[in-house]
């Protein structure tokens, strides 16, 4: 069962954030470059929910106001952080504690908690800043420490001393977990006594006897025999109360202090998650308690869920049917309810010190499958590449010097589209999230050549953090959706795929592709590329169908404005046409072909002639056969090409994305 989670955060005037409003899901991966404000985002949530924050921590300072505000205190600016919680309606403790924080949003009940830092005017005319945290819309309903017992956040910091925390008996999650069991004091006392007894056997070892004798004689030599001191040895006292806290956790029989930092991190995070788990259904029940519960109404459910062990205590069965699980939960919730609250876990950079394989595992097994809500910040492409597309929170800087936050929570795409993007993101190690701008292209040739073109134009993509993303088809829609959700600048470069329409005797229309436009040809013609873009734009509700002009030139202009750049034919053909009357550039094309083809001189000759005569489609066919392929051709072209090879629409696309990124 998924626990409640923060479904929306609104931050106003706090640190990096002027005014953000972001939707979140149950598991969120927060990405963005260094010092973009990821930690501040978590801190904003902590101002509301972290029980370890003191009053002083919540009392902010002038420097906590958004940087873009001038003299915020003089101007009586207000900092506000609103947190909406969802998926709580089956948690009775939460309902009991917090139902007066209920608000309705888009027909759905949610809990709203607000932190507000604001000026109060005093009687003498001075103003003084105060903070309040309140429930719902009513400022008099304060959200206090009692409430934070039931809903809170725990942040595991990026710079964490995991080893230290595990060693410290007060902070060790193992000790906290042990406390959840009620271990009989008498049992511990017996064990301690036995330990003490067998420990003192050591004193009977002859070696020890000898040692004691020697110490004693040395001692009396110094003090003189007149003194009446006797030195003896004793083993350490074993305190039954400390028996439990003295336990150490071992991994493959090794002490945590000997483990790598990475493994310690995983261990620590696993233990914390275990600690935060809903304990309504215990994995272990003592004999007496079991008997007591068994006698309650519907107590039979216990028989099918628990197994007696040798000591007549009960352990939960490893595998339980869902029906049983559900019934058991209800039974326990009724007859042995827990006073626990819900903790949302935030982990900063869980990848620290971890091998890439462990980074992936940590996300997949430890975090993704946990019933608690988890927020994590990361720089790891190993994590972003496997995080579900709809769990991304993306931070990027905006014009005003602040940070914008966008999330993919509300991404509304088809399952197969989702798979498509997910596969892409995984293969490309999540690089799409890391860019400041994205050029979407449809094939490998563009993927090789577009970056090179940009360099030739004096606008290298790397410098601006622009990424070329090869969709390997013209299925741009889900990617565009994703990028729009994240409010990331993008352009789309796609082929025009010009065609003529053939009309048969029966009046059936067939499209004829791979032909060049000829003014004398009076057949109707069209561009598949334009209609693909047109469909995307309509599907995404960017522009309504009746607003799209029928004229191809006007269409193209409109699409350009939206970031869609459509060629005439296909990329290679457009490139050949671009440099048509340019001997040097034509020669480069021929040289590359000549170098790559396994055909003979004759064929090379034919390629040159066709290129000169404008039979570009034939040229392309030759590239696609003869063991070359578009990819290999583009790869080599990318070393040799010049600015004059760049088709106009690609140039425009590069200029466009450059401008968009510069605007940020």
């Amino acid at each position, binding site marked *: 069962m998924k626990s409640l989670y923060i479904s929306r955060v609104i931050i106003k005037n706090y640190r990096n954030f002027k005014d953000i409003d972001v939707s979140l899901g149950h598991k969120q991966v927060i990405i963005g470059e260094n010092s973009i404000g990821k930690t501040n985002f978590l801190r904003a949530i902590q101002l509301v929910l972290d029980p370890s924050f003191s009053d002083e921590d919540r009392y902010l300072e002038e420097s906590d106001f958004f940087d873009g505000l001038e003299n915020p205190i003089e101007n009586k600016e207000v900092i506000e952080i609103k947190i909406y919680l969802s998926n709580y*309606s089956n948690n009775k403790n939460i*309902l*009991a504690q917090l*139902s007066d924080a209920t608000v*309705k949003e888009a027909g759905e009940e949610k809990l709203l908690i607000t932190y507000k830092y604001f000026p*109060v005017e005093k009687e003498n005319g001075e103003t003084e800043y105060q903070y309040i945290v309140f429930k719902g819309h009513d400022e008099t309903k304060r959200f206090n420490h009692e409430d934070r017992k039931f809903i809170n956040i725990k942040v595991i910091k990026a710079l964490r001393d995991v080893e230290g925390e595990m060693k410290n008996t007060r902070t060790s999650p193992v000790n906290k977990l042990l406390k959840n069991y009620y271990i009989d004091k008498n049992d511990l006392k017996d064990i301690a006594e036995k330990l003490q007894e067998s420990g003192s056997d050591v004193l009977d070892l002859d070696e020890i006897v000898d040692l004691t004798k020697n110490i004693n004689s040395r001692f009396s030599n110094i003090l003189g025999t007149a003194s009446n001191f006797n030195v003896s040895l004793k083993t350490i006292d074993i305190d039954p109360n400390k028996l439990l806290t003295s336990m150490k956790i071992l991994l493959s029989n090794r002490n945590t202090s000997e483990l790598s930092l990475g493994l310690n991190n995983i261990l620590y995070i696993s233990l914390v998650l275990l600690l935060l788990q809903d304990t309504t259904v215990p994995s272990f029940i003592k004999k007496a308690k079991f008997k007591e519960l068994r006698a309650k109404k519907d107590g039979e459910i216990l028989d099918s869920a628990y197994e007696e062990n040798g000591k007549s205590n009960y352990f939960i069965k490893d595998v339980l049917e869902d029906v049983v699980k559900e019934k058991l939960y209800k039974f326990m919730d009724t007859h042995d*309810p*827990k006073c626990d609250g819900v903790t949302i876990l935030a982990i900063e950079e869980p990848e620290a010190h971890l091998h890439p394989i462990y980074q992936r595992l940590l996300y997949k097994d430890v975090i993704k499958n946990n019933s608690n809500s988890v927020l994590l910040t990361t720089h790891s492409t190993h994590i972003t590449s496997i995080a579900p597309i709809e769990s991304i929170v993306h931070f990027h800087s905006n014009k005003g010097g602040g940070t914008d936050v966008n999330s993919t929570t509300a991404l509304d795409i088809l399952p197969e589209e989702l798979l498509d993007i997910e596969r892409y993101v995984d293969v490309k190690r999540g690089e799409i999230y890391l860019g400041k701008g994205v050029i979407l292209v449809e094939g490998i040739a563009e993927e090789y050549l577009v970056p090179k073109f940009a360099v030739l134009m004096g606008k290298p993509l790397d410098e601006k953090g622009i990424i070329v993303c090869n969709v390997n088809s013209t299925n741009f829609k889900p990617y565009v959706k994703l990028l729009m959700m994240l409010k990331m600048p993008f352009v789309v470069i796609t082929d025009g795929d010009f065609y003529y329409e053939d009309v048969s005797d029966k009046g059936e229309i067939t499209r004829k592709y791979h032909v060049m436009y000829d003014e004398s040809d009076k057949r109707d013609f069209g561009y598949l590329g334009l209609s693909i873009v047109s469909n995307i734009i309509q599907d995404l509700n960017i522009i309504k169908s009746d607003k799209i002009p029928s004229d191809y030139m006007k269409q193209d202009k409109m699409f350009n404005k939206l970031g869609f750049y459509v060629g005439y034919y296909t990329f290679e053909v457009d490139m050949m046409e671009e440099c048509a009357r340019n001997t040097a550039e034509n020669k480069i094309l021929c040289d590359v072909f000549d170098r790559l083809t396994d055909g003979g001189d004759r064929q090379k000759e034919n390629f040159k002639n066709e290129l000169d005569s404008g039979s570009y489609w034939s040229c392309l066919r030759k590239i696609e056969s003869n063991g070359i392929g578009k990819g290999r051709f583009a790869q080599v072209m990318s070393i040799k090409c010049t600015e004059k090879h760049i088709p106009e629409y690609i140039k425009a696309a590069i200029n466009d994305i450059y401008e968009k990124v510069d605007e940020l």
Partner: protein
Amino acid sequence: MNYSMSYYIDKLEQIKKDTMQLEAYNTQESTVVIAGPGSGKTTVLTLKILKLLREMIKEPRGLACVTFSKEAAREFKERLNKLGYEERQNVFLGTVHSFCIAEVLGNFAHLYNYQIPIPIKIISERDKRKLFEKVIKDLGVEHIGISITDMDKERTLNIKGMSSVQVPTYDIALKVALEYEKRLQELGLMDYESIIKFSTLLIQEQEYVRKCLSAKFPWVVIDEYQDLGRPLHEMVLSLFTKTDIKIFAVGDPDQSIYGFSGAIPDYLLELYKRDDIIPIELKNNYRSNQDIVDGSELVLNSSRDYVAVTRTDERAEYVFITCEEDLEEQYDKCVNEIIPNYIGKGISLEEIVVIAKYNNDIKKLSSKFLEKGIPYYISKHDFERSDFVKWLEVCASWVNDKTSVSFEEIYLYWERLVLNHNDKEFFYGNRRVLEKRKLYNILTDSYEFRNKLNLWIKNIVTHLDILNLLNGSSIYPDEIENLENLIKVASEQRYKGYDISRFSKLGKPENQVTLTTRHSSKGLEFEVVIMLGMEEGNFPDYRSYSDPRKLAEENRMCFVCISRAKKICVLMRSKYYNITKKNGGIWHKPCEESRFWKILYRKFAQADFNRRK
């Protein structure tokens, strides 16, 4: 009242000796307890609440204990504290109205579109009367003589739900009710009936509201179920059948005497008879002797087989006193002969009650007491003992003795009051501390006026600027009027001798004879009960003759009165009443003994009964 371990143990021992009480105390599922007079229901209820909170309900979840009157809620609170209850969150203790405002409308009304005015603004009594009269006039039904009570009763009956109890409706009153409600809503105002009706609607129709309530209150405890009427019954049915909430309802159908407001015994019985409810009847009477118990069952006209368990060897004294004419003579006899007689026998004044029919009778009677110099106590005061007045009483107690109550508690009420009436920024930062200091100083300084109630109240009201604070209050629309009235009457005859110590004990007689109406006698107990006006036509009222429901309620009313007595029951009547006729003449009307008198007389005044005595 502070926690007393021995008190708790005593009470627990007491419960363990009574198998029926113990069964009610131990139930794990929804239970309805029918508790006859003197059956120890308050003990069962308070201990049950403690047991639920200690053993079955874990924090942060709690329970709701809903009572009929504010007084009952206060009494519960005191009892619980004495038994060792420790404050915890989500324990609601109060009247149905305050439950509806605080837990239903306050938290959820803004989420749904029921046209509930938010924040809730309550119509004042005066404006309500005006509005009602306007409706009556506009509908042209002035001549029919419908009262506000009639209308409100129809409004409560008009609620839809699951109960199959059928109650005849009064069509013209219903028409008035609908028009009144329409106009009330147009004004953006609410009254007590609409608060309950809207709360019931929210609970019936909104699953989320039920979920939240059942999370907060896994148990709902209801006292005096028979007095609570249809909306609460529907609310309970809805919570009980559609959530996991468990009900612990206590009441006595035989003590249902608020028929005029729509409360009838049938609702409690409907709940009691459900298959999914554990029914328990408390049969033991810890108050009266068996003769009193038997007598009360006789006038009820139903056998209940209640057993007197504490005064086992005692016989009752039924005394029948016949006067010549008018109530006046009964008053005189009462103050001149009967009461002095019992005082002479060593019965303390607070063990005596005189029960009359109307408030006006009580007023006349009280002036006789005054003349004669017998201290008396009227449970109904000349002002409303509202939450605010009750707070003043607590303040008075603290001013007198700082250990008697906690200042923190006094302050918290004050803070709530100010927060609810003032701009909210009032309490930011240091001003909260300053406000606390201010209140502390004002109360401490008021000590110098402690001997004069009227001066003390004036002092407090002035320094706290209360009239200003409550001006236009949407939650306490009647409070200013009430306070002005309090200040006025505090210097009048009845309260003239009051100091603040007496004021802080306003709720109970202190070496005084209690004077009360029949309705207000409910819940009280006395060694001696003196009932006036025991003539047929007066009791039962001749206007009830035609309606068997009303007549049955008169039986129950007499049952309530008789069962107030522990030992002695005095019935008084006059042979003639002088009634002023319309033409100004006097009708010397002969009156027969009340049927209740006759029944009791037959059983207890006969020679053989007196001989046994």
